[in-house]
């Protein structure tokens, strides 16, 4: 016997009464999620210690833009190699002539830059104040989003792929393969995820890539179980028999009939998983075992705030709010996805 799937809380089960409110909620959650992703992608354009455009020694430079471009996923490495922009080799803050042309980002500070006195209150210069080492909180928040979004999205992509492959193989092949995959899933589930992640982090050291790998490679189990259960029950369904009876091949049945059915709950689980990954990363960073002290993260900010919880409790607000809102968005979106991907309530209602 295998344990039934871990189900996320099923919220708002009565449809008719709450549909309007949910629509509004979902839209704002989606808007916030998109904002977070955009902020993460365009972080240097919003907060950076270099200007967006500046004139240095008679030439125009685009320091923040080139930095943004080289951080983009997939194409970033091409930007770094091909260098379509002039990459600056100067520090704009000190080397730029005072009246030279320079367009600064809205928050003209880097996340690790000490720009003011420690623990400034919010002001026009520092919208959310500064932390104990005089770094701008807003700039750190914006760059913390980079880490959270990257960890959340990439680790769940990894977990999704591993989970679908292993769970799908187990559910579709059955027999010995199923037995082995099930044992593997069971073994992985016996380790509390955070323990395993901590231990592995000791071996591989700090770094965003390491975190993504570790979270991805420990969080796939629930996905795999979901996909396996979906495939197993799918194999028994009449429509799969019908497909077999008109000569469809195993691959066709798996990809066309079973996978779409499995994909919907997987997507839902992955959306909830993004929240978990963000939480795991922040927890690791809080312990000082995350991406390292040289990168701004929400967890790290939280740790700084914790160290001064008696003297400057206000420092907690920004990272707490950021983590809470992103987690809440993931939950709301996941819940909405769950309803809209169910063919019985989703497609039908929107069509007729």
């Amino acid at each position: 016997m295998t344990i039934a799937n871990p189900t996320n809380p099923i919220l708002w089960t009565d449809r008719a009464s709450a549909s309007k409110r949910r629509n509004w909620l979902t839209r704002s959650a989606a808007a916030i999620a998109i904002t977070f992703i955009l902020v993460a992608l365009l972080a240097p354009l919003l907060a950076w210690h270099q200007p967006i455009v500046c004139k240095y020694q008679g030439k125009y430079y685009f320091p923040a833009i080139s930095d943004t471009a080289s951080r983009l996923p997939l194409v970033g490495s091409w930007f770094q190699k091909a260098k379509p922009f002039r990459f600056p080799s100067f520090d704009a803050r000190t080397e730029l002539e005072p009246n030279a042309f320079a367009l600064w980002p809205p928050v003209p500070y880097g996340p690790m830059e000490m720009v003011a006195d420690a623990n400034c209150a919010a002001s026009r210069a520092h919208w959310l104040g500064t932390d104990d080492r005089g770094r701008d909180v807003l700039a750190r928040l914006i760059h913390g989003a980079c880490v959270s979004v990257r960890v959340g999205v990439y680790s769940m992509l990894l977990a999704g792929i591993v989970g679908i492959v292993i769970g799908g193989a187990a559910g579709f092949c059955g027999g010995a393969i199923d037995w082995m995959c099930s044992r593997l899933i069971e073994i992985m589930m016996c380790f509390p995820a955070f323990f395993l992640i901590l231990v592995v982090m000791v071996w591989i050291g700090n770094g965003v890539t390491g975190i993504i790998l570790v979270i991805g490679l420990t969080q796939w189990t629930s996905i795999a179980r979901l996909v396996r259960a979906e495939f197993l029950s799918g194999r028994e369904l009449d429509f799969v028999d019908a497909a077999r009876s008109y000569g469809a091949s195993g691959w066709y049945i798996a990809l066309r009939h079973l996978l779409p059915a499995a994909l919907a709950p997987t997507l839902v689980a992955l959306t909830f998983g993004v929240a978990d990954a963000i939480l795991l990363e922040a927890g690791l960073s809080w312990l000082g075992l995350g991406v390292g002290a040289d990168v701004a993260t929400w967890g790290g900010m939280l740790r700084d705030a914790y160290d001064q919880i008696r003297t400057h409790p206000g420092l907690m607000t920004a990272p707490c709010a950021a983590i809470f809102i992103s987690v809440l968005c993931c939950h709301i979106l996941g819940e909405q996805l769950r309803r809209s991907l169910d063919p019985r309530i989703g497609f039908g209602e929107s069509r007729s």
Partner: protein
Amino acid sequence: MTKSTHTSQETERQAPRLRISNLHVSFANRAHRWLQRNASRIHAVHGVDLSLQPGACLGLVGESGCGKSTLARAIMGLVPLDRGTVALDGSDVQCTNSRSSRQRIQMIFQHAHASMNPRMTVESIVTDPLRFDDRCRKSERTQRVAGALQLAGFDEQLRGRYPHELSGGQLQRVAIARALVLEPDVVICDEPVSALDVSAQAEILAQLKDIQQTRSLTMIFITHDLDIAAAICDRLAVMYLGRIVESGPTAEILRHPKHPYTHYLSTARNLERTGGLAQLEGEPPSPTAPPAGCAFHPRCPIRTDQCIAQTPSLASTGQPSSQHQVACHHSDRIVELQKITTTD
């Protein structure tokens, strides 16, 4: 290969289109799979022989759990056979195992709703089989689908709908269209109307009968309802616990059942009169532990020691020319049974 060449080859009508011989299917008993020395197997189908002439319609009748659905799935190749062969026009389907020979047998499932992917529209459901039809070019697909839907009497307007938006009768029409779109020679209908309302039942049955006759399809019609079988089948085979206990022309079986079980099946139809008729007591025995000898003996009022000791085999009754066969040691004593039931 077109249909005309087939029929011209078969100059003598005797050559059966579908021939099933000595078919055995069994499953591992899930309840006792583990740690039990005598890990028993459930014998779902136990040595079934059937043969169908082209254009014939055979009704397979029996209570639920008697193995008739398993037999259908075995013919379709959906469950592995223990023993026996399924031959189409004389060639073993198992051996050739090519897709095109498999496609000549199609099936209509009991639960039309479950037999359709809920994420596909009617059109894509009916188109799906054509992807595996090597003879059908992509451009012909729409036309073939439209033809099949029309044949099944499905409203063209609704082809963009999803299964859950259709009524039971409409869904069953889609199922018929999907089975017919490959232009099969044999269609197996597994209780196609048992999930429907009475009025929808009549419509679908009429449609099926019509299609079967105009297309001269060979059809196996599985049902638990003798009335339905009588309405559209020209031959009947009665199954009990994995074996065929009686087979023959429909009218013959309805008028003169030779097996006690068939006798009770046909009495049960007369619901209004059951008060006057003795009924079959008890439930079908479990296929995990079938009774020794004749499987029906624990419920049979005319059993003798012979029934317990020896399993009867299917044999012709009365005049050797008749196709009426029965597996009962005492088929001649069936008259006694009729007396018991009517006098009580």
